[in-house]
C-alpha cells in the first residue's frame, strides 16, 4: 500500500542510500533494456501509448471481422451464415469490442502519447499507474473475449444489454457474466487512467503553458478524461447490480418482485451518452491539430473551440434519456430530454464552422492526414444531422431501433471517430516511428475507406426509413431490403480492403524507411511542442523543459509576423528544435507489479463465474502485488544504466528553465 511508501516524499539527492530493501516477491526489479521484457515492465508513457494503439488495432480487426460476419449474414434475405444465437453474440461483441476495445483504447493511445508531449512534460503524473491502466485494460479485453471459448459464447444481449433480457432466465450462457465483469475490469482501467491524465494536465504543464495555451488535442482529451471520470462509476453501479442479479440472485431487475427494468436503462445511458462524446472528442482534438497545420493558419477561434468542447462535455450529461424516447418514461420527460438533446447541435456546429473558417483563406495541403481530417468533418456532419433528426422525439418513434439509427451512429463513430483517429495516425506516425507512412498507399487507403464507408452506412439510412429493424439476424424477402443490404455488404468489404491497405502501408513504410530521408523533428511544419523534439521521441522527451510563451509556441519559434502581417521565418527547424541528446535525465524506473496486479483481476472474474476459490487466488495475487508495489521504491536504487538516479542529480543541474 502506497501509504507506507515514503519515497515520493523523501527521495532527494543523496537520499537513495537509505533504500536498501529489495522489493518483495520473486521478481528482481526490471532494469530496463531493449528486449520484449522491457515492454512488460515499461512505465514510459510513449511505450504505453504504443501498447494501447497496437492492441486497439488488433481489436479493430476482431471487431471488424465480427462486423463482416454481420454483413455477410445480412447480405441477402434468409441468410444462413450465422445461426440466430451466434448472430446475437456476434453483433453484441461487435459493439462492445469496437467501443471498449478499439476506439476508446485508440484514443487512450493518443492521450498517453501526446498529452505529456503537448504540455511539455517528461511523463504522466503517475507512470506506474499508467502501466497499471494499460495492463488492466488488456486483461479485461482478453477476459471479455475468452467468453467465446470458456463462457459458452459471447454476450448475446446487445451492447446496452437491457434488463430483463440480461437476466439468467433469458440469457443463460455465461456470456453476460463476462460482459458484466469484463466491462467492470475495463472500467477500472479507464478510471485510473482518467485520474492520472487529469492530474497530468493540471499539474505537469511546462512553465508558461497555461490552460488556455494548451493545444486543442490536449484540451479535448482532458475533457474526455473528465467525462470518463464521472461516467464510469455510473456504469460500475449498473454492472454491479447486473452481476449481483446474475451471480447472487439479487432482485434488482426482477419485475416479478416489483423491480423496474428501466433502472438499468437510465444507469446505462447516463454513462452511455457521455460515452459517445468520449468517443468523438479525441477525434475532434486530432482534427483541430491537423486542419490548422495543413491550412497553414492557426486554429480559428481557439477559445470558442475549447469552450464548445467543454459545453459538449457538460451538456452531454443532460440528454441520456433520448435513448429511451419510446420506453414509456412519460411525455414530460420525453419533451425535456428531446429539448436538451437538440441544443448540443449548437456547440458542435460552432466547432464545425471553426474548422471551416480555419480552412478559409488558408493554403490547404491535402496530405493523407488532411484528407482524413476533412473527411471527418464532412462525415461527422452527416451523422450529427441525422442525430438531430432523432432528437425530435416524436420523429424518433419511427426511427429508433431501426437501421436509421445504425446509420447515424456509424456516421458519427466511424465517420467522425475512426476517420479522425486515422487522420491522427497518418499525422503523428513520423513523430512516433521516425518515418512516414507511405502517402501513395495512404491515398488508396483513404479513398477506398471513404467510398466503402459511405457505401456501407449510407444505404442504412434508407433501410431504416424503409422499416428495417436493427439487431435482426435475418429478414424476409419482399420487404424491399434486399438491394441496399447487398450494397452495404459490398461496402463493408471495401472497408476491409482499406484496412488491409493500411496494414500493408505500415509494413511497407517500415521496410522502405532506411532508404528514405528521415522526417526530422517537424516534417509538417506544425505548431505544437511535440514537433520541437526529434522523431522518434527520445525516451526522456525533452532535453530541457520548454518555456512556453503563447499558443502554438513551437510555431512561433520558427516564424514571426512582420509589421505587414506577413509571416517570416526566424529560425529553421534544425535551429529551433531540441537535439534529444541530453543524458542523465532522471526517469521513473520500470516495474513488473502493474502487470502482476492486472493478472489478478481476470482471475477474480473467472472465479466469480466458475469457482470462488479461483477468485480468492486472484484477489490474493492482486493484493500481494499491490503491497509489493507499494514497498517498491519509485526509483530503483540499483539501477545503473543511463538516464537514472545518481547521474540524474548531476545531469539535472545542467538543466533549469532556459527561457
Amino acid at each position: 500500500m502506497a501509504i507506507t511508501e515514503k519515497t515520493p516524499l523523501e527521495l532527494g539527492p543523496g537520499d537513495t542510500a537509505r533504500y536498501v530493501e529489495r522489493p518483495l516477491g520473486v521478481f528482481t526489479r526490471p532494469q530496463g533494456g531493449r528486449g520484449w521484457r522491457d515492454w512488460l515492465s515499461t512505465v514510459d508513457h510513449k511505450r504505453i501509448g504504443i501498447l494501447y494503439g497496437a492492441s486497439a488495432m488488433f481489436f479493430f480487426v476482431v471487431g471488424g471481422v465480427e462486423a463482416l460476419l454481420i454483413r455477410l449474414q445480412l447480405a441477402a434475405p434468409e441468410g444462413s451464415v450465422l445461426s440466430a444465437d451466434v448472430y446475437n453474440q456476434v453483433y453484441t461483441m461487435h459493439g462492445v469490442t469496437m467501443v471498449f476495445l478499439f476506439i476508446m483504447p485508440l484514443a487512450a493511445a493518443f492521450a498517453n502519447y501526446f498529452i505529456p508531449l503537448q504540455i511539455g512534460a517528461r511523463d504522466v503524473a503517475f507512470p506506474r499507474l499508467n502501466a497499471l491502466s494499460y495492463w488492466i485494460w488488456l486483461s479485461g479485453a482478453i477476459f471479455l473475449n475468452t467468453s467465446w471459448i470458456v463462457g459458452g459464447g459471447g454476450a448475446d444481449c446487445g451492447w446496452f444489454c437491457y434488463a430483463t433480457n440480461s437476466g439468467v432466465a433469458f440469457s443463460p450462457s455465461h456470456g453476460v457474466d463476462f460482459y458484466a465483469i469484463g466491462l467492470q475490469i475495463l472500467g477500472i482501467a479507464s478510471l485510473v487512467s482518467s485520474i492520472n491524465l487529469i492530474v497530468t494536465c493540471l499539474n505537469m504543464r511546462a512553465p508558461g503553458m497555461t490552460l488556455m495555451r494548451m493545444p486543442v488535442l490536449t484540451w479535448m482529451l482532458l475533457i474526455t478524461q473528465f467525462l470518463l471520470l464521472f461516467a464510469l462509476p455510473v456504469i460500475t453501479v449498473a454492472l454491479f447490480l447486473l452481476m449481483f442479479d446474475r451471480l447472487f440472485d439479487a432482485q434488482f431487475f426482477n419485475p416479478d418482485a416489483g423491480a423496474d427494468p428501466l433502472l438499468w436503462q437510465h444507469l446505462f445511458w447516463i454513462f452511455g451518452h457521455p460515452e459517445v462524446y468520449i468517443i468523438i472528442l479525441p477525434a475532434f482534438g486530432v482534427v483541430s491539430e491537423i486542419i490548422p497545420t495543413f491550412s497553414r493558419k492557426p486554429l480559428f477561434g481557439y477559445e470558442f473551440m475549447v469552450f464548445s468542447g467543454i459545453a459538449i462535455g457538460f451538456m452531454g450529461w443532460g440528454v441520456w434519456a433520448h435513448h429511451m424516447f419510446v420506453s414509456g418514461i412519460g411525455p414530460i420527460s420525453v419533451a425535456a430530454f428531446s429539448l436538451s438533446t437538440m441544443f448540443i447541435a449548437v456547440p458542435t456546429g460552432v466547432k464545425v464552422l471553426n474548422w471551416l473558417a480555419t480552412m478559409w483563406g488558408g493554403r490547404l495541403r491535402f496530405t493523407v492526414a488532411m484528407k482524413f481530417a476533412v473527411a471527418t468533418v464532412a462525415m461527422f456532419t452527416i451523422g450529427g444531422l441525422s442525430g438531430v433528426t432523432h432528437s425530435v422525439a416524436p420523429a424518433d418513434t419511427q426511427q429508433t431501433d431501426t437501421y436509421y439509427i445504425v446509420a447515424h451512429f456509424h456516421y458519427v463513430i466511424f465517420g467522425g471517430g475512426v476517420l479522425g483517429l486515422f487522420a491522427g495516425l497518418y499525422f503523428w506516425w513520423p513523430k512516433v516511428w521516425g518515418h512516414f507512412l507511405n502517402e501513395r498507399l495512404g491515398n488508396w487507403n483513404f479513398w477506398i475507406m471513404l467510398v466503402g464507408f459511405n457505401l456501407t452506412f449510407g444505404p442504412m439510412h434508407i433501410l431504416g426509413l424503409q422499416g428495417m429493424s436493427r439487431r435482426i439476424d435475418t429478414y424476409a424477402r419482399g420487404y424491399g431490403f434486399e438491394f441496399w443490404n447487398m450494397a452495404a455488404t459490398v461496402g463493408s468489404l471495401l472497408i476491409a480492403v482499406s484496412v488491409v491497405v493500411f496494414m500493408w502501408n505500415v509494413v511497407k513504410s517500415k521496410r522502405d524507411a532506411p532508404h528514405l530521408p528521415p522526417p526530422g523533428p517537424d516534417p509538417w511544419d506544425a505548431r505544437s511542442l511535440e514537433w520541437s523534439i526529434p522523431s522518434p521521441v527520445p525516451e526522456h522527451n525533452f532535453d530541457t523543459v520548454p518555456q512556453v510563451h503563447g499558443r502554438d509556441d513551437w510555431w512561433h519559434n520558427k516564424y514571426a509576423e512582420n509589421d505587414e502581417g506577413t509571416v517570416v521565418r526566424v529560425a529553421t527547424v534544425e535551429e529551433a528544435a531540441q537535439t534529444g541528446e541530453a543524458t542523465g535525465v532522471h526517469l521513473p524506473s520500470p516495474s513488473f507489479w502493474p502487470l502482476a496486479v492486472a493478472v489478478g483481476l481476470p482471475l477474480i472474474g473467472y472465479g466469480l463465474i466458475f469457482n470462488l476459490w479461483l477468485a480468492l487466488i486472484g484477489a490474493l495475487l492482486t493484493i500481494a502485488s499491490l503491497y509489493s508495489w507499494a514497498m517498491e521504491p519509485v526509483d530503483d536504487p540499483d539501477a545503473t544504466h543511463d538516464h537514472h538516479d545518481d547521474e540524474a542529480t548531476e545531469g539535472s543541474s545542467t538543466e533549469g528553465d532556459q527561457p
Partner: protein
Amino acid sequence: MRLPARPLGRVSGWLLSLLGAAVATGCASDAELDTFAPQGPIARELHSRGVLPVFWIAAVVLVGITVAMVWLIWRNRVKNYEGDDEWPAQTHGHVPLEVGWTVGFFVTMAAVAGIMLWSLPTVDATETNLMGVTVDDRSVEWEPTVVVVGNQWWWEFRYYFSDQVDLADLRAHGDAKTLPPADIVTSGQMVIPTGEEVELILTSRDVIHSFWIPALNGKRDAVPNRFSPWKIEASDPGFYFGQCTEFCGLSHSRMRMQVVALTPADFQSWVDDTTQDAVEPADPAALAGLEVFSGICTSCHVIEGVNDDVFESADQASGAAPNLTHLASRSTFAGGIFNLYNADGSLNRVQLEAWLRNPGDLKANYTVPGKQYRGMPDLDLSEQQIDDLVAYLAGLGNRPADWIIEATQVE
C-alpha cells in the same frame, strides 16, 4: 386487397444523392414497413409535422455545410505544395462571427424545438371516442382500447368490452402475468375498427419488446412491470405490418405482428365471432385432434370451451402461450411469421405441420427440458397426432376474408 405501399419519397432521394450512392433504382415496391408511407391520421400528422420538417432543416444545413466545404477546398487547395513556402494571412478568430453563427444555430434549433413541441401531441394526446359495440347481445359503449402484451416471441392482444380497463386500472393492478379476464384474447394479429383512435396499453410478461406498426404510428416499448400508453389509427380497411423492434432475445427477428383494420361493421362481426367459445368439432380426425390437444397442449395453450376453466399456467418464462380459440381466423401464426393460408386460400398445412413437428426448426427458441421454456418445445408428436391436430386447429374459427389472406402473402 394489398395496399400499395408508397416507395420512399423525396427525402430518401436527397439522402441518396448526398451519400453519393447510386440512383434509387433498388428501392422496393413492396416496402410494407416503410416509415414514409403513413396510412392513418396519427402517422400522417407525425410524418408531416414531426419527421419531414426536421429532415428538411437537416437537409438545408447539410447542403450548406457541404457546399461551403467543397468551395473552400476548391478555392484554397494548393496543388503542388512541395517547396511551397508561402503563408496566408494568420487570422486567429473573429468574435462577431462566432457570436453570429452561435445565435444562428440557436435559432435553428429553436425552430426544431418548436417542431418537436408541435408534433409531440400527435403521438401522445388521446381523445375520448366511444364506439358502440355489441357483445353477447349487450351493447356497450367501448372506448377502443387493446391491451398489448409482449411475450418471447409473440404478441397477445386483449379486448375488454364488458369490464373495460384503462391505464390507471392496470397500473394499480400491476401484474402482466395475471391480467383480468378479457372478452377476446388473440395473438399475432390485432383487429381494429377503421376511423377510430385505438388506445393501446402495452406491457410484457418477460423481457422488453417494442410494438411498431410503421404505417399507423411510431413505436412504444412493452416493458415488464410497466403499463405504457400508445395509440394507432387506420383510415382505411387494410393489413398493416409490424415488427418487434426492441431486442428480445433469440428470435427477436421473428417476432412480428400485423394490424387488420376492418370497417366498424366488419369489426362488429369479428367481435361476434371471436367472443364465442370454440365449437366441438364433428369430423373424427378433428375430434382425435381435440383429444391430443387436451392431453398435451393444454399445459400451455388455452382454447376457450376446452380448457379455459382448468388452465393454470404455461411452462414458459412468460407463463403464457398463445390463445388458440380462434386460431383459424388469423392469417398468420407463430409470432406473425408464417402464413396460415396459402395464396389460393387453402390451409398452409406444410408449415403448420412442420411447426408441430418441431417448432424450434422453424423459429429459434430455447426449450431445454428442466429449464423454463422460451418458445414452444418439440413435443415428439407422431405424424398421426399431427394430422389430427391440424384437422382440429383448422376448424378453430372462421377463415379470414380473401383480401386479408392475399395481403398476408409477403413473398
